[in-house]
């Protein structure tokens, strides 16, 4: 089953075309890697899928329904969760609270609930329990009372993932999850991403670390100057002449 | 110890120190003193009136004490700055009543603050004399509440009559300052007065205290072709309005109340305010013997400063209190109150003052003044009867 489909999606900023008629398919329970040189349009695609930008043209379909221009909180309700390239945690809140907020769309409670404590208590316990399970899953259980801003860089990256998972998404978008991690941390992260997939999630990954991309992705799509230049298994991509040219071109 | 806990401890310490400070006795109570509380703003936007009243009060207390005090005791003024803030007024009044145990309060010069303080004074049976409030609804608060101002309900018709019958002006533009309670109240009286004597209000405009641009209003007023501009608020805006009229070539005089009769009106307005007419209960330029005496003493005490209306009224309030105390022979609230209420034809610096049975002041005469050659000049003295 197709979870996400990009159909001729284009994004222009003034005179600049950042993304040009990109097509992309993401199947259920698949890990798709999105790579490309800097400025190729990866993050723009990310921001379109998550509702920060509305595409100038083309369609984005999630589970067969068009989601162009939907606000990001609605997308989260539908089952799309994300992490951020430049970490955006709730720094002054505890690790546990961060994950609890991640579960916002999967829990109930309003002003009335907050004031009449009793029914809310049970719900609160359920929220906390769930949040703790995600923390444990990401190996952060011991840190639950720390303030998020006090975590190490790698821990913050993992907390972002835990927080995103708390919204019970169908599709998880990871924006450079390994940035700033050391090789050991990256290895551990790869393992975690695999385990997330094993839980039944579909994952779209933007990443520069080729070892990680080639190591865990089922499929890889390559962008250059806003256009998709290749799409295939890691093996196919590694031997694709256009891809090599694009990367070498950048290096040279 | 974490930084957080340290700052929490500091906070708790702060609270404890504050609490202790508040519980310490405020001032040693000297047996030979009678305390009068001063209410008014010494800082903030309305500080002019408070500062003036306090100066007048201090002069009065000095004179009384020099003459041996009252009932063998010296008078002392307890002063706090209420900044015109109503919460402050309430707190200070309550403090005077409970901590300082004053037997009388002079203040506040503004109506609004007086309305906040008066119920507390009434409840504690403390005489309160406001040296400035003129709007209705003040003395009605209780039988311990008085004021020694010239009531607008006397002055406004008098000046309207003069403008219409003597000056033969018929068409008036009425300007109100909408954020000034004195002005809003006075405008109604002006309107009624103008109507009563056969004049006509051809246009009504609003300004706010603190405005400096009146160009749009003056352009409108000019088109309405009035004989005079009636302005019910204070001298600063009054003078600036006349300046603007002068710039736009609108050559009509201003008619107003005692809010305009202060030296800055002429200072700011210059030639533009020539020919303005207004009423006042107090005229430094045409003083009676009592006023002369007060003005000289005031100038001597405050480096040659010319006393303004609020200073004279603050001075009179203290003098009225002292006289009543002497007459009552006791500080017993009931007897003292009755003595204040019985004040009749008191020869004050701001005019002759009688308290009517409803505790409203009757001040006579009312002076009608004008601006001539850059100075205030007397037009007429209008005696006022009950």
């Amino acid at each position: 089953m197709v979870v996400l489909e990009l159909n001729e999606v284009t994004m222009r900023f003034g005179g600049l075309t950042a993304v040009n008629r990109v097509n992309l398919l993401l199947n259920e329970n698949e890990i798709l890697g999105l790579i490309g040189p800097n400025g190729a349009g990866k993050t723009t695609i990310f921001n379109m899928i998550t509702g920060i930008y509305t595409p100038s043209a083309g369609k984005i379909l999630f589970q067969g329904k068009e989601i162009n221009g939907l606000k990001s909180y609605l997308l989260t309700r539908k089952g799309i969760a994300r992490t951020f390239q430049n970490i955006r945690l709730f720094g002054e809140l505890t690790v546990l609270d961060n994950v609890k907020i991640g579960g916002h769309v999967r829990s109930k409670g309003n002003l009335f609930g907050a004031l009449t404590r009793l029914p809310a208590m049970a719900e609160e316990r359920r929220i906390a329990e769930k949040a703790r399970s995600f923390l444990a899953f990401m190996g952060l259980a011991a840190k639950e009372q720390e303030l998020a801003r006090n975590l190490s860089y790698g821990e913050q990256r993992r907390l972002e993932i835990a927080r995103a998972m708390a919204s019970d998404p169908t599709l998880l978008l990871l924006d450079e999850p390994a940035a700033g991690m050391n090789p050991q941390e990256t290895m551990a992260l790869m393992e975690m991403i695999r385990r997330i997939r094993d839980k039944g999630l579909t994952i779209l990954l933007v990443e520069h670390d080729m070892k990680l991309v080639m190591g865990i992705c089922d499929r890889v799509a390559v962008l250059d100057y806003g256009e998709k230049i290749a799409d295939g298994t890691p093996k196919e991509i590694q031997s694709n002449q256009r891809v090599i040219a694009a990367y070498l071109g950048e290096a040279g | 110890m974490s930084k957080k806990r340290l700052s929490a401890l500091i906070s708790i310490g702060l609270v404890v120190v504050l609490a202790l400070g508040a519980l310490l006795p405020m001032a040693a109570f000297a047996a030979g003193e009678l305390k009068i509380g001063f209410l008014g703003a010494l800082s903030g936007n309305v500080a002019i009136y408070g500062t003036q009243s306090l100066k007048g009060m201090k002069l009065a207390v000095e004179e009384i004490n020099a003459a041996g005090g009252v009932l063998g005791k010296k008078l002392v003024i307890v002063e706090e700055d209420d900044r015109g803030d109503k919460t402050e007024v309430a707190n200070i009044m309550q403090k005077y009543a409970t901590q300082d145990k004053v037997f009388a309060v002079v203040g506040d010069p503004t109506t609004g603050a007086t309305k906040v303080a008066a119920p507390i004074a009434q409840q504690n049976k403390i005489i309160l004399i406001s040296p400035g409030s003129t709007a209705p609804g003040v003395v009605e608060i209780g039988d311990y509440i008085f004021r020694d101002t010239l009531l607008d309900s006397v002055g406004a018709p008098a000046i309207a009559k003069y403008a219409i019958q003597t000056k033969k002006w018929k068409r008036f533009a009425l300007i109100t300052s909408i954020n000034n309670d004195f002005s809003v109240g006075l405008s109604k009286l002006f309107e009624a007065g103008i109507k009563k004597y056969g004049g006509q209000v051809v246009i009504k405009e609003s300004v706010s205290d603190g405005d400096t641009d009146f160009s749009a209003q003056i352009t409108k007023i000019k088109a309405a072709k009035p004989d005079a501009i009636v302005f019910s608020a204070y001298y600063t805006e009054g003078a600036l309005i006349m300046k603007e009229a002068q710039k736009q070539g609108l050559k009509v005089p201003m008619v107003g109340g005692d809010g305009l009769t202060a030296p800055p009106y002429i200072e700011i307005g210059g030639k533009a305010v020539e020919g303005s007419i207004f009423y006042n209960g107090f005229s430094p330029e045409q003083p009676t013997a009592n006023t002369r005496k007060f003005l000289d003493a005031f100038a001597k005490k405050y480096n040659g400063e010319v006393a303004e209306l609020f200073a004279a009224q603050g001075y009179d309030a203290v003098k009225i209190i002292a006289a009543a105390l002497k007459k009552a022979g006791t500080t017993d609230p009931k007897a003292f109150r009755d003595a204040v209420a019985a004040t009749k034809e008191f020869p004050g610096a701001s005019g002759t003052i009688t308290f009517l049975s409803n505790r409203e002041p009757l001040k006579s005469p009312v002076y009608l003044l004008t601006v001539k050659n850059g100075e205030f000049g007397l037009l007429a003295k209008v005696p006022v009867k009950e």
Partner: protein
Amino acid sequence: MINAYYLQVLTIMGINVIMALGLNLITGVTGQLSLGHAAFMSIGAYAAAILTLNYGAPFWLALLFGALVAAFFGVLLGFPTLRLSGDYLAIATMGFGEITRVILLNLDIAGRALGISGIPHSSNFSTVWILAVLSIVTMVFVGNSRLGRAFLAIREDEIAAEAMGVNSTYYKIQAFALGSFFAGLGGGLYAHYITYLNPSDFGFMKSIEILNMVVLGGMGSIPGTILGAGVLTAVPEVLRAVREYRMLFYGGLLVFMMIFKPNGLLGGVHFSTIRNWLIRIFKGSAGSPAGGSRGGTGAGEDAKTRVQEG
């Protein structure tokens, strides 16, 4: 020892606590700087006073009515303006405050510049503090709920909050409505304590005064806000010098706090934190497992767990 004067200062302190808690919810918890809190206070005060004076309504009904009207205006202002962010919102709320003042100056039912006088003196120490305690409890409950976490998430990072499914506009309006409700409640109590209302008492400076309470105590912290309201009500009464230079002091305080202690005296301190310190003090600090290596919150939670186990 408690005479009428202390009682009055404490009562006004209680009113300030209620209003400051309202602003803390908007500015401290949700991170939306409001410079028009006094306007909501005035709306509550006038609505309540008009109800008791002109319609003879019972005091408690007038209070509730005033608070609800204020909340209604909070929503009204919220709907359009909350799409604005940061300083634009602050300026819009300031504009709203000025507009409210001008409208009150033009309303006959509000007595124009003459204001409303003779309001029954119905507020007293106990009503004010019962309501203050109720407000504190409400704030604590809200703070520990899904609603409160949504507010906090918006303050911390609006884009991330939206990405977590928090409809930020909806929650910001709720924060404004709730915060304005408490401003209105405080206003109603104020009206029935001071017994006289005038539009000039609810200007920009009043908003700043309330903001100062929150900033001094610690934005987002309930105990901090209470402390801030308490200190700024008491200090001018005790220190004469502070009373005279008050506005100067307020201005300087804002700058000073922002530079040296932007989180206020008790920033990040919650009732649970204080409870944990107390537990620690009474149980002795021996055998503390956390060793205080991290912030107070972490260490405190350990203590709490121990108590629950024990």
